[in-house]
């Protein structure tokens, strides 16, 4: 579904990604794990068009999207929940969700999906008129996820969804990711919390300083000695 080949990305003189290649297949949960600054977020930004690659190829559902503009990539069915949620804090919860459906024209479909999101996150329905900036961290994560779902994506990319949340909420968030996947959406998950990520993923890639150093099934990596030592403590 998503195929990345030989990706090289620079920030000025800094070589952030070295020949990164990976693949996400239909229906999977794939996770990218690695330390802070390993290049996980850069990969998601490059895939969704916020950052331009120097070389390499990104294809999504057999279409080359390497140089496609960010606002067009979304229309291919690729949604991105950015690190730190980045909800529109000066807009209401409902307005935020409608922003997620900005590129869509089908009014009935939007209303239907809005209802689905409210079903999935009843807390958001309770606060639909509240300013998003006044929500708690966990609620903001639900909102950011719901907002991304409003574009009816076939692939959902999530960047550090557990960051800054209490352990109970972290469990809740991962349960949500599993259920989103179960309802047919492919998920690419970037996480520092490697144990949780591996526990729900099908496959995983390990990143170190901009390079993919290991890949395999989540189970295999969970029992890999290097990975255990470095990321699972």
């Amino acid at each position, binding site marked *: 579904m998503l195929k990345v080949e030989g990706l090289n990305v620079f920030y000025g003189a800094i070589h952030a990604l070295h020949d990164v290649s990976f693949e996400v297949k239909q229906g999977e949960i794939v996770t990218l794990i690695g330390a802070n600054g390993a290049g996980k977020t850069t990969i998601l930004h490059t895939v*969704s*068009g*916020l950052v331009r690659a120097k070389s390499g190829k990104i294809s999504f559902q057999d279409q080359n999207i390497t140089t496609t*503009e*960010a*606002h*067009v990539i*979304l*229309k291919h069915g690729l*949604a*991105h929940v*950015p690190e730190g949620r*980045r*909800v*529109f*804090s*000066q*807009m209401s919860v409902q*307005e935020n969700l*409608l*922003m*997620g459906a*900005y*590129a869509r024209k089908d009014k009935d479909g939007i209303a239907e999906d809005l209802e689905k999101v409210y079903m999935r996150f009843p807390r958001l329905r309770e606060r639909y008129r509240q300013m998003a900036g006044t929500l708690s961290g966990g609620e903001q994560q639900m909102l950011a996820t719901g*907002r991304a779902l409003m*574009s009816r994506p076939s692939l959902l990319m999530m960047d550090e969804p557990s960051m800054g949340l209490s352990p109970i909420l972290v469990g809740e968030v991962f349960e949500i990711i599993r259920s989103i996947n179960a309802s047919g959406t492919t998920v690419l998950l970037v996480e520092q919390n490697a144990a949780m990520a591996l526990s729900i993923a099908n496959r995983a890639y390990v990143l170190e300083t901009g390079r993919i150093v290991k890949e395999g099934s989540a189970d295999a990596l969970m029992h890999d000695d290097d990975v255990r030592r470095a990321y699972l403590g």
Partner: protein
Amino acid sequence: MKPATFLITLINGLQLGSVYALIALGYTMVYGIVKLINFAHGDILMVGSYVVLFMLTTVFAAQTLLAKVIAVAAAIVFCVMLGIVIDRVAYKPLRSAPRISALITAIGVSLALQIIAQLIFGSEQIKFPQVILNETLFKIDKKPVKSLPIITCCVSVVLMIALNLFVNKTKPGRAMRAVSEDMGAARLMGINVNNTISLTFAIGCTLAAVGSVFYAQKVGYVKPLMGSLPGIKAFIAAVFGGIGSIPGAVLGGFVIGMLETFVNYFASQYVDAVVYGLLIVVLLVRPAGMLGKAVREKV
């Protein structure tokens, strides 16, 4: 102060305030979305009034109602196109450059517009034709209350309400708010950021073009440097109200206009000292402006 003088001063203050508010909206919206103080915005006011002048003196032989409507429409269209072109040519290449580069560019654009106007129309002030009806409505104590200030206030308020509805209730309006809050997240929502920025410039220039007709009519004359002073006052109004805030710009415009007019009555020697002094006090007490929200800079 005689009651009649008070009433007329009040009306004049509201008139000046609505023009400042119309211009301040352009400053604040552009700042909100690209974090740029567009110093060329005051000169859009000048360009708008020269377009009306040109249409009514060179293009049309008779100043009929139709000619006036077309002239104002032409001014709006021209200013909108100019604003978008300025953004694409001068500011867009500097979007990721340090803010000071864009600021200096904006000052350069302002000077360029003034000099181009001098080259085309000369530096002398030229009489502005009557576009809006300015009849005496009634007299108090032998002093006439004219229609121009009333029309100016009414049209401005209608435009401000329309703008408010547009920004809060429509899809492009929501897109503008989204881009102004988080450009990256807005792109992830499928918003074409460049088009949204162009739309912002277009709205700002539309308001400035309408303001230009009211302002030129009030002064009675146009000249290449006519935009600087109202531009600076409107900028102060935007900062006073909280730059980036739309209601703030409206509030600031009316406060500065009223203040200037009344200080001119009571102590005309100190008018600029009072206006700038107030700005300093506001910035000391509320650095984000009256209605601005204190936003932490993203690191």
